[in-house]
């Protein structure tokens, strides 16, 4: 606001600036000579200042407007139904760091926000404008929440993020970096950004382009490939992972001769994920020469003859010659060859057997773990459900839960190559035999909400753990997963578990009450999720 300057008025013969100077220095040091004698000077200054202050305040006028911000892009999505808007406000009020202690029976609302956002996005709702600051703050604190929160927050959140440095992340983490990126019909701007952009902008541009038109992205990359720095080449090459196809092979083959070993290794890895590639064929030949069926024994067995050297051509194809500490060189080379060879090699090479039959064959000289682990990595890399199934084996097999040829971490990756129903069924079978303590990683790769048999297996296992007398917090990880992943339809079946059970002599003290509380929270959370879904499931207008 502007104050109109205190022009010469009747009783006060001094300017505001003069008054301030006098007041600051004190009337003993500085007395305006013009002032009427006979009055106490400090009081005269206060009188004059009071009049001037009021005159300044009363004469206040608006200032000049600064450049108005460009309006935010319109959001064409439909508004949230009132009940869902209410729920969102409640979920966003539950911010971390404001409370502590035991969880009690109340649901963990922050944990439900991801699900709420996924549902709202699936139904195509727009975020209420006034919730955008809270949404951006939530997304800022939790990177796992970002993609869904930013998608829901929509164009206006990006508009806000440009005004508040705290929210800059939103401009970066949007798929392809947001509105700043050129569209598919702007080859000129694309070219310019690729030539002149910052590294992060160029990665974002390449990633976005790759998602839409893989060939164009690869051609753009090829134009400057020779002049890029090694670490940049590695990042750019990594973007080819999405939409990888046979057309990428020539480019990747050239990258196999790159100056940087990391670039070579990444190129080789990408090529080996293309079963029809020349590199895959070379690896198949190398790996095939190491593994054979020995029919001279009573039962046919696999014999392994690991490579004796890592020659230059192997190194060129991405085999890392130097083994990590504690590993034999020859088994290290073998593992890499088998991992990179197309799985289709093996039935041909091993007497027309199916993957199941091959996995079931005995392996001589302790090579079994090495070989099965390499096949597992190959099955994951080539996303081969047949081999995954064979390597996973039966969930009820004793070695599925214990130390076996394939670790739990590898099993969970193998599971991810199977369809959701098959995955759930396998994990349910696993839990039935081995209980919950080993199942956590496997549950993490199952589709949400959990299929019926899987959910029942988890709940039964929790009930058994309670009967065994342990404390519920030994299972808090699984309990937390169950709250987020169990089908809300199961809530009714769980009511019986919320009662406090009698303590027996082998029960930990007080455990019954804590279990009842934990099951209560589970039921409450499931009901809340059902309600959340209902609130967001309104028919299209």
């Amino acid at each position: 606001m502007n104050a109109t300057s205190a022009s010469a008025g009747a009783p006060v013969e001094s300017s505001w600036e003069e008054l301030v100077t006098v007041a600051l220095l004190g009337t003993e040091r500085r007395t305006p000579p013009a002032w009427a004698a006979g009055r106490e000077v400090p009081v005269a200054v206060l009188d004059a200042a009071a009049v001037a202050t009021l005159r300044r305040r009363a004469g206040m006028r608006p200032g000049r407007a600064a450049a108005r911000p460009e309006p935010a892009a319109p959001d064409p999505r439909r508004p949230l139904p009132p009940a869902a808007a209410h729920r969102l406000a409640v979920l966003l009020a539950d911010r971390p760091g404001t409370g502590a202690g035991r969880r009690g029976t109340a649901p963990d609302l922050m944990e439900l926000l991801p699900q709420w956002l996924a549902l709202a996005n699936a139904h195509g709702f727009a975020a209420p404008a006034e919730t955008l600051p809270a949404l951006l703050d939530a997304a800022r604190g939790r990177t796992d929440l970002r993609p869904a929160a930013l998608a829901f927050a929509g164009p206006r959140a990006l508009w806000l993020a440009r005004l508040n440095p705290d929210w800059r992340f939103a401009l970066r983490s949007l798929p392809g970096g947001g509105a700043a990126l050129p569209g598919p019909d702007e080859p000129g701007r694309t070219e310019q950004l690729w030539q002149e952009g910052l590294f992060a902008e160029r990665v974002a541009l390449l990633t976005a382009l790759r998602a839409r038109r893989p060939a164009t992205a690869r051609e753009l990359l090829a134009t400057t490939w020779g002049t890029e720095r090694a670490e940049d080449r590695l990042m750019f090459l990594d973007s080819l992972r999405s939409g990888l196809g046979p057309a990428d092979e020539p480019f990747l083959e050239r990258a196999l001769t790159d100056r940087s070993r990391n670039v070579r290794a990444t190129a080789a890895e990408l090529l080996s994920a293309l079963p029809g590639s020349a590199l895959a064929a070379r690896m198949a030949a190398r790996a095939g020469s190491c593994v054979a069926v020995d029919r001279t024994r009573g039962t046919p067995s696999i014999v392994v003859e690991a490579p004796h050297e890592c020659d230059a051509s192997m190194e060129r194809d991405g085999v890392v010659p130097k083994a990590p500490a504690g590993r034999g060189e020859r088994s290290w080379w073998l593992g890499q060859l088998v991992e990179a060879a197309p799985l289709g090699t093996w039935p041909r090479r091993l007497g027309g057997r199916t993957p199941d039959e091959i996995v079931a064959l005995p392996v001589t000289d302790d090579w079994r773990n090495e070989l099965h682990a390499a096949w597992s990595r190959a099955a994951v890399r080539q996303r081969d459900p047949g081999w995954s199934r064979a390597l996973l084996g039966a969930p009820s097999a004793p070695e599925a839960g214990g130390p076996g040829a394939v670790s739990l971490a590898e099993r969970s990756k193998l599971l991810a190559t199977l369809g959701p129903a098959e995955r759930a069924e396998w994990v349910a079978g696993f839990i039935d035999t081995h209980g919950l303590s080993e199942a956590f990683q496997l549950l993490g790769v199952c589709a949400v909400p959990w299929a019926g048999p899987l959910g029942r297996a988890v709940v039964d296992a929790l009930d058994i753990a309670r009967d065994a007398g342990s404390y519920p917090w030994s299972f808090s990880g699984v309990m937390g997963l169950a709250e987020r992943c169990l089908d809300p339809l199961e809530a009714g079946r769980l009511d019986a578990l919320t009662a406090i059970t009698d303590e027996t002599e082998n029960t930990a003290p007080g455990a019954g009450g804590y279990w009842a509380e934990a099951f209560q929270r589970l039921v409450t959370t499931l009901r809340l999720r059902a309600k959340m879904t209902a609130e967001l499931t309104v028919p299209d207008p």
Partner: protein
Amino acid sequence: MTQQGVRWTADQVLALAPDTASRRAGSKLGTAGPWSETGSSDEGTLWGLCRGSGSTPYQTVIDIADSTGPAYTCSCPSRKFPCKHTLGLLLLWAGGEGTVPRGPVPDWAGRWTEGRRERAAANRTTGGASGTASPADPEAARRRAERRAARITAGAGELERRLADLLRGGLAAAEQAGYGMWEETAARMVDAQAPGLATRVRELGAIPASGPGWPVRLLEECALLHLLDQGWLRRESLPDGLAATVRSRVGLTGSAGGPPLRDRWLVLAQYDTADSRLTTRRIWLYGAESGRTVRVLSYGPAGRAPELTLPVGLAFEAEVSAYPGTGRLRAALGERFTLPAPTRTRPPGVSTLRAATRYGEALRDDPWLDACPVTLSRVIPTPDGDTWQLADAEGDSALPLTPSALSGPGLWRLAALSGGAPVTVFGECGHRGFAPLTAWPEGTGEAVRLC
């Protein structure tokens, strides 16, 4: 009274929470899980049993229809008010149909509500006795008032001498003298039974630490304090309205004696300020028919929210009566005839130029006024260097936001609501700038709280 159409939004309920921890705890309890035997009556009572960590559940009862505002009770031991169970139950009720079904009031809930309403009714019928009606001994009261006026006069005289000393020695010296000098003077004003003077003196003490330009602000506030002293010392010769303003500024609280004004009041804003002893809640109301804007105050002890709660954006029918003082906007809430309910009413807005003029005019009635309530229509929140302003959508005038408005979360809610398009904003407009309190989007959207 009925409950028809009175559901609140989650925001309105969460605004009741006395602190963020309660807000979080309350929002967790706003789900059906821990609750049993919940219900609501047509008369505006809500009740429910909430399972806590103990063996017996807590009993929570809320009377949203009480004539003095929503009232709550809960058997939990929390000293927060309202407690998390109260907030949870309100959220549950606000969440939608079904979770808090209509039903007969159970005994335990009914006893409390009836007791409360009986007491309230008794207060109303004998209401005069404690407040406005003539005291038992008018002569004694007159002598008491005279004694107090004499002490205030002595206090004002002393304050005048201290201000003159300050000006003689210079404000620059005040910076070195520090806060202690002002604290001591403020204590003298408390002794003189002039709390209004004491508060202003204490505020003077904070100015030297308030950043660049402090000498100007200190001179302004000293001059206005001097003006108030002079107003008190010469109150006999002032016009009645201004004399009443001076009395209330000095700290002599009159009583709300104005004629009751019945209107449909829209709740424009509600916000709390707290010091070490007291929480003050300020509520702005706009009368749809009279066009008047009034302010209602409610107090709570430190750490507890004041009891009067009116969710922003709702409207209700009630009587208010004004406190003395021509320029003062303060009023007391009298009888309430309906419950707060959602409304499409919006206050009519003005341009930024008219808003500044309105503040200037208000200073005529109350020279000590820092800001006056104004609704701006069709303004665009606009960043301006390190600060923000509200710029007229048409024309090139703009009001800067106050420094305190720049630091709160409200600014970003306002910016988000606007998205670069014109909005309607209610707030306080004064010499420090504009402090936005509530905003409405273009079109017919609901009020959004900014404070």
